[in-house]
């Protein structure tokens, strides 16, 4: 082939033409393109990917969303603005004494894949797995003082507790620990459900496909026998960590429902994109800055207290939450038993007091490292802290982590990184009972969820006793005192509970908990 002929066949571009072309393609790629989800398909975003299909390994929101769609509980949270629950598998369930709850299952409720009827044996098996020390379940605290589940008939049974445990109704039965699994299927699989094969399910959806790091594809479960059947042929739970990216994905039609960043609230409330609607919910989450009490830098309480005073919570809320949230007084949100009216250290902090405390401790040129999630709200908050702490003469370095790395920082089972952990900005999910907040900070949780390695006998006792206390006023007092102890330790600076702003397509009627978190099984077409 001659050179000329070759040029005709493969037009040769100069570097400048190539640059111009690339710029054109980039510009075209930035144009908004609507790719509406297929009819009958719902795409919901999760900010943290579920671990697997086994409730015994569950740890939070990702699993709660997935399990709500594919499994069933005795009772379920009711979507709406007030916390309440409805009967699901249970035909009846009641507290028959301080230490017993009796239940009767609806008859004819079926497992998928020919595993037959759901019976009281499945219920007992579910909770006994969590109690089994060999399973090493991270949700063991959720079931509190539960001792055993007695099967009294094919459809009936009794929960027996060592002591009264009121939170069981709110944090166990309708949530992760109360997710009933199929005894026969799990025993057949060797005792644990992995992600290798789709699980035997009972919910309105079943698992069709798993694309790790991207999406969990569910489809309508034709074997479902409950009273809230799937309204979509397909439900995709899509993992997008970044809120800004999720917002763009929703506007492009790749998502039907997502939480958006607080920074977008002002713009979206006044002028939501065409075909979308927004809702705002008070959040139960709690955000705090913690200090590893065993780290050499933080063993002197005056240093920890100096850092508490050096953090200006008001400035953080204004900058990172755009003023749409309120400073928190602890880990228990307003409206719940145990919420404190105010924190011991004022939200605006006091840089001068911080400097004095450091001088008293004989510490000069303090340099500390704060670990945060790679999330715009948290990195913004960290930068504000960096600026305000500098006023007290403290140099704050910021370490940003991806989700996978972040959530193992303080976990002893995941390596030695907990030893070098200094400060951490963290956010935990929450349920409508205060024991679900204090449970993660008791001494037994050190190295698991208690990354501050905070240990206090009085705190542990209050948590234990408040869980068995049935008098609300007394419980309120106990949980308030528990948070005082946390703050007095110097290891915690409480930041906010935030808000949950949701954006969704108006062809969807979302089903959400009062705190705005989605309950996928309740989503309906408009």
């Amino acid at each position: 082939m001659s050179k000329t002929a070759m040029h005709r066949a493969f037009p040769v571009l100069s570097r400048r033409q190539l640059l111009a072309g690339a710029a054109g393609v980039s510009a075209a790629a930035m144009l908004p393109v609507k790719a509406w989800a297929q009819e009958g398909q719902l795409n919901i975003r999760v900010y943290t990917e579920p671990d697997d299909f086994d409730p015994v390994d569950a740890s939070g929101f990702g699993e709660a969303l997935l399990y709500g769609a594919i499994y069933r509980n005795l009772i379920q949270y009711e979507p709406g603005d007030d916390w309440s629950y409805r009967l699901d598998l249970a035909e009846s369930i009641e507290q028959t004494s301080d230490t017993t709850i009796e239940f009767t299952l609806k008859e004819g409720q079926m497992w998928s894949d020919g595993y037959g009827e759901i019976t009281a044996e499945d219920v007992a098996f579910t909770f006994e797995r969590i109690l089994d020390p060999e399973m090493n379940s991270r949700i063991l605290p959720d079931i509190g003082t539960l001792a055993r589940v007695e099967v009294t008939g094919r459809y009936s049974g009794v929960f027996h507790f060592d002591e009264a445990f009121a939170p069981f109704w709110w944090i166990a039965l309708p949530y992760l620990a109360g997710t009933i699994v199929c005894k026969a299927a799990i025993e057949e699989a060797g005792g644990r459900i992995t992600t290798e094969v789709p699980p035997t399910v009972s919910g309105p959806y079943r698992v069709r496909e798993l694309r790790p790091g991207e999406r969990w594809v569910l489809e309508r479960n034709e074997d479902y026998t409950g009273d809230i059947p799937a309204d979509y042929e397909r439900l995709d739970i899509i993992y997008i960590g970044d809120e800004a990216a999720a917002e763009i994905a929703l506007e492009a039609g790749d998502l039907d429902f997502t939480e958006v960043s607080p920074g977008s609230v002002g713009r979206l409330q006044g002028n939501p994109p065409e075909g979308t609607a927004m809702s705002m919910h008070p959040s139960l989450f709690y955000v705090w800055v913690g200090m590893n009490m065993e780290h050499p830098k933080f063993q002197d309480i005056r240093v920890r207290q100096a850092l508490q005073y050096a953090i200006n919570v008001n400035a953080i809320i204004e900058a990172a939450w755009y003023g749409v949230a309120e400073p928190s007084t602890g880990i228990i949100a307003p409206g719940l038993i145990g919420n404190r009216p105010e924190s011991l250290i004022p939200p605006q902090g006091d840089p001068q007091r911080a400097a004095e405390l450091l001088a008293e401790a004989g510490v000069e040129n303090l340099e500390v490292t704060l670990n945060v999630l790679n999330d715009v709200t948290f990195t913004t908050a960290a930068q504000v802290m960096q600026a305000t702490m500098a006023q007290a003469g403290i140099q704050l370095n910021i370490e940003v982590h991806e989700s996978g790395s972040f959530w193992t920082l303080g976990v002893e089972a995941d390596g030695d990184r907990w030893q070098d952990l200094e400060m951490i900005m963290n956010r935990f999910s929450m349920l409508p009972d205060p024991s679900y907040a204090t449970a993660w900070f008791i001494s037994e949780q050190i190295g698991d969820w208690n990354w501050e390695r905070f240990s206090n006998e009085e705190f542990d006792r209050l948590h234990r006793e408040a869980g068995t206390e049935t008098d609300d006023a007394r419980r309120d007092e106990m949980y308030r005192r528990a948070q005082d102890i946390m703050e007095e330790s110097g290891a915690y600076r409480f930041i906010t509970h935030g808000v949950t702003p949701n954006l969704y397509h108006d062809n969807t009627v979302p089903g959400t908990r009062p705190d705005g978190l989605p309950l996928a099984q309740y989503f309906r077409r408009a």
Partner: protein
Amino acid sequence: MSQLRHTLIGRLARDPLAVMAIVIITTLVTMAVFANLIAPYDYTAMHMSERFAAPSAEFWLGTDNLGRDTFSRLLQGGRIALTVGLTAVVISGLIGLVLGMIAGFGPRWLDNALLFFFDTLRAYPTIILALALAALMPRGLTTVIVVVVITSFAEYGRVVRTQTLSLKHSEFILAERAMGASFGRIVFHHILPNVLGPFFILAAMNLPVVITIEAGMSFLGVGVPPGTPSWGATLKDGFDHIRQTPWLILSGGLPLILVTLGFTFLGEALRDQLDPKLRSGR
């Protein structure tokens, strides 16, 4: 040599592309070096009531999500870009120069081994390799430089090896050898000066690539820590808040465009002047 340099400078001065490149680069370097004198604000100062401000007489390129002056931050970002760019290019260039000449001059097995090493490194997608390396090291400017050096020295090694190989068998080198010239004389008097031309062209072309890698790493959250005003971090802030203001991403992209154009034009002009084949074709 001095006359040659003057001839080169003279030729570059007559090339409009080279003049444009030198103007852009000189402006950017001057702004970066004198950033503290030029910047109207402290680049860390927050003006919360002015967040997401559009460009104005008060804030020439607007402000970011914390009300920090974007122009002042971009000036500081220029320092980071040049520090990373120049340091990485010098270190990776030197490593590539030495390894490339060893490969070109060494025994066949060593050449093959080094070639395999260069090609293995070059076969990895740069940003993926950078992400993997960054995950293993503490976050910061030093890490960024180390990552950039590791991802780019093989390119220099490959070019220098090829040049060395072609020179090694040329007649004048054979004549030198026949006359008993030492190894050092051959390398430093004959090979090195002839290799430096393409080496400098590659270095000039590579500098914006290196700066873009740094910006890319910061954009992806594995570069400099939050709060550091690198150009990539400014772009990331712009992306995160693109719904609030378009100015941040436009302003953050501007210096990257200019530095890429400046050094690419300079590289092209140098190539036009230093490559005898291109020159004779004119």
